[in-house]
């Protein structure tokens, strides 16, 4: 029965190998030279083995008559031995080298000992050579598949992440020339044609186009760009020809920075990876010594204490089975591959993770702390309401804008924006700024006071408080109250959904920190459904609050801080994990944060957490799967239930499953 199964399997192997050689091997870049040779060896060896299967030991024995006694036995051995060498010579060579270099416990050594042992047992019994060769054959097939699958997925993931521009167009003597982007100096003008990638950061000096930033941000909506706009490298110009004056060297451009970051991300190893490589170092020698013990101790015990036959052959066979199971490769390969795929998938969605370790921490995040301005709100202050005014709205805004025209305060900028025209400064005179209160100035000769309640009190003008939250600018014209203007930050459209989505993906507590007034902060927090608010904090106060929150959290829960990276670098680095958002083009933010969200959509935070959870789930699945199967096989092997076939299929099978499972990390678009 078992023999029949093996014969069928050999047939399948032969057909598959031939098919792979014809269809993939002939394609350019389908297989490396090494892989091709190996596949040919597998094909030859499997065919020879299947052929030898149909010639029984008795048929060889008939040769005895023509030659010398027991010639058939030795000729049969020679035939199998040749086949064994065809499939396994490189393993034997490596094993020998390993012993010479005192690096004994590697998988080559294990396979060599296991199969040579099985061959020796077969010679001794003139029995089944099939097993030793088949085990070596299936091991080689497993290795081949692993090398091929890992190599292919490695290339695929790298390609996905590869946003590296190959060339830059430079105009020379009226003609376009393609040059290496490395050679373009700061301040030179490059030309980007429709469909091409912007190779270097710069400012548009001619032309307009819509830019596809999806490679950087995962955002599919194109962005319009016109003369004077800054463009960052990695965007694809879709409609028009752009002339761009570069502001950075290629090496300093966004695209190079991102590539560098993502490529090096998997070098920062996670705890699970460390665990596995430590485990592998202990596991292989441990299994080898147990195999030795299994080969020697039970027969001795049987002989000396139980008065039974030693059964050396049986126990040595069981020990050899142990060796086959002891290769840790399935385990070692699948973990970094999972992380690599996870980081690759995330970067496609505009979430840059700086290391496998951060992906791991992110998955354990239970507390998310937000900065308010620029993170949950747009950080752009706008006029949101005008109340209690007797003048026309536009007239009041005009007065306010003119009175504040000398100031560069964000509030005055929002007034200018609301006014919509360039303020005519000649209409303004006698500007007096009262620090912390507001401005008094003459516009067209009329005295205008614009400022907060303190200013009104100072001027002894009765004012009406506002029920809305935000910054209130009270206006007085010729000493009489003329109403107030409310300026407030606008909450981002997705903020509320983002908080809800965080909750549903397992975050227990959301906290908002802000330097803003309590009333404003509470109102924003309530509207978004945030659990805790700490307001009126100075930058140093934010660090203290985060430290306090770090002390409060329980056990292994991690705390993430989300900011826009502009003035919260200390907090970003103090939290367990710092997330900077809207960081496209901001070096400081990319530097300080552990995870960088390329656009400023807060929904990406929960997406990042979900990606990390999925990735870690797959990592744990793989660890558990590999360990359970290996230990089950070890136990079954020790009791003689599992034979070498089962051991090698378990080994190869687990590895294939683990690799396929790891690839799932790449599919994160719909999370």
């Amino acid at each position, binding site marked *: 029965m078992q023999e029949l199964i093996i014969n069928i399997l050999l047939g399948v192997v032969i057909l598959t190998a031939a098919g792979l050689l014809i269809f993939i091997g002939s394609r350019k870049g389908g297989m490396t030279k090494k892989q091709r040779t190996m596949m040919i060896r597998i094909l030859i060896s499997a065919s020879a083995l299947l052929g030898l299967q149909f010639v029984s030991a008795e048929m060889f024995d008939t040769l005895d008559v023509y030659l010398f006694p027991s010639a058939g036995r030795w000729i049969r051995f020679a035939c199998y031995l040749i086949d064994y060498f065809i499939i396994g010579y490189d393993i034997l060579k490596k094993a020998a080298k390993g012993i010479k*270099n005192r690096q004994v416990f590697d998988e080559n050594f294990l396979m060599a000992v296991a199969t040579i042992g099985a061959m020796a047992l077969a010679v001794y019994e003139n029995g089944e050579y099939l097993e030793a060769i088949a085990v070596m054959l299936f091991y080689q097939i497993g290795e081949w598949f692993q*090398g091929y699958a890992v190599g292919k997925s*490695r290339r695929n993931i790298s390609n996905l992440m590869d946003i590296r521009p190959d060339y830059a167009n430079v105009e020379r003597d009226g003609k376009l020339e393609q040059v290496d982007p490395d050679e373009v100096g700061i301040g030179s003008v490059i030309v980007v044609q429709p469909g091409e990638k912007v190779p270097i950061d710069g400012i548009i000096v001619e032309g307009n186009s819509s830019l596809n930033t999806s490679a950087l941000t995962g955002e599919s909506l194109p962005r319009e760009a016109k003369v004077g706009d800054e463009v960052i490298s990695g965007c694809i110009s879709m409609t028009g020809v752009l002339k761009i004056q570069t502001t950075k060297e290629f090496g300093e451009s966004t695209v190079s920075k991102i590539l560098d970051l993502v*490529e*090096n991300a*998997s*070098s920062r190893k996670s705890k699970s990876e460390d665990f596995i490589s430590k485990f592998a170092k202990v596991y292989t020698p441990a299994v080898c010594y147990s195999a030795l013990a299994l080969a020697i101790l039970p027969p001795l015990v049987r002989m000396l204490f139980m008065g039974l036959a030693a059964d050396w052959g049986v126990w040595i066979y069981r020990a050899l089975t142990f060796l086959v199971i002891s290769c840790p*490769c399935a385990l070692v*390969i699948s973990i970094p*591959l999972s992380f690599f795929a996870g980081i690759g998938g995330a970067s496609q969605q505009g979430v840059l993770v700086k290391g496998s370790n951060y992906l791991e921490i992110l998955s354990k995040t239970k507390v998310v702390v937000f900065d308010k301005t620029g993170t949950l709100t747009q950080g752009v202050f706008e006029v949101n309401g005008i109340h209690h005014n007797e003048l026309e709205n536009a007239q009041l805004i005009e007065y306010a804008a003119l009175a504040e025209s000398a100031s560069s305060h964000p509030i005055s900028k929002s007034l200018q924006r609301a006014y919509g025209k360039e303020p005519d400064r000649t209409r303004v005179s006698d500007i007096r700024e009262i620090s912390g209160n507001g401005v008094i100035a003459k516009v067209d000769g009329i005295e205008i006071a614009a400022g907060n309640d303190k200013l009104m009190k100072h001027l002894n003008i009765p004012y009406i408080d506002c029920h809305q939250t935000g910054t209130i600018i009270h206006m007085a014209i010729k000493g009489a109250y003329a109403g107030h203007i409310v300026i407030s930050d606008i909450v981002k459209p997705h903020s509320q959904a983002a908080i809800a989505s965080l909750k549903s993906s397992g975050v227990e507590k959301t906290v908002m920190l802000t330097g803003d007034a309590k009333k404003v902060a509470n109102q924003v927090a309530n509207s978004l459904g945030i659990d805790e608010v700490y307001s009126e904090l100075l930058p140093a106060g934010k660090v203290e609050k985060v430290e306090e929150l770090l002390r409060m959290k329980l056990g292994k829960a991690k705390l993430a801080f989300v900011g826009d990276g502009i003035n919260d670098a200390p907090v970003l680095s103090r939290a367990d994990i710092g997330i900077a958002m809207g960081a496209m083009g901001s070096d400081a933010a990319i530097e300080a944060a552990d995870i960088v969200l390329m656009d400023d959509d807060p929904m990406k935070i929960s997406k990042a957490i979900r990606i990390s959870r999925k990735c870690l789930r797959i990592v744990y699945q793989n660890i558990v799967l590999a360990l359970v199967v290996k230990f089950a096989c070890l136990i079954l092997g020790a009791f003689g239930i599992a034979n070498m076939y089962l051991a090698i299929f378990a080994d190869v099978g687990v590895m294939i499953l683990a690799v396929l499972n790891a690839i799932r990390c790449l599919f994160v678009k719909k999370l």
Partner: protein
Amino acid sequence: MKKTYKIEVDCANCANLMEDAARKTAGVASATVNFMTQKMIVEFADGTDPKNVMQDVLKACKKVEPDCEIEL
């Protein structure tokens, strides 16, 4: 000083062994092998010549994994 080298190695466990071997080489402050991107990042101790050190690293790596390659 930190330098990155392209490497060629077939199996992940062998990459780990190479990392170990590189770390133990004299003159290497720290070493990381990234199997996925096939790169070795080596940080050299102060006052050492990367070229000489890398020769030793290559030798040490060849010892643990005869099939590996480091582009120096």
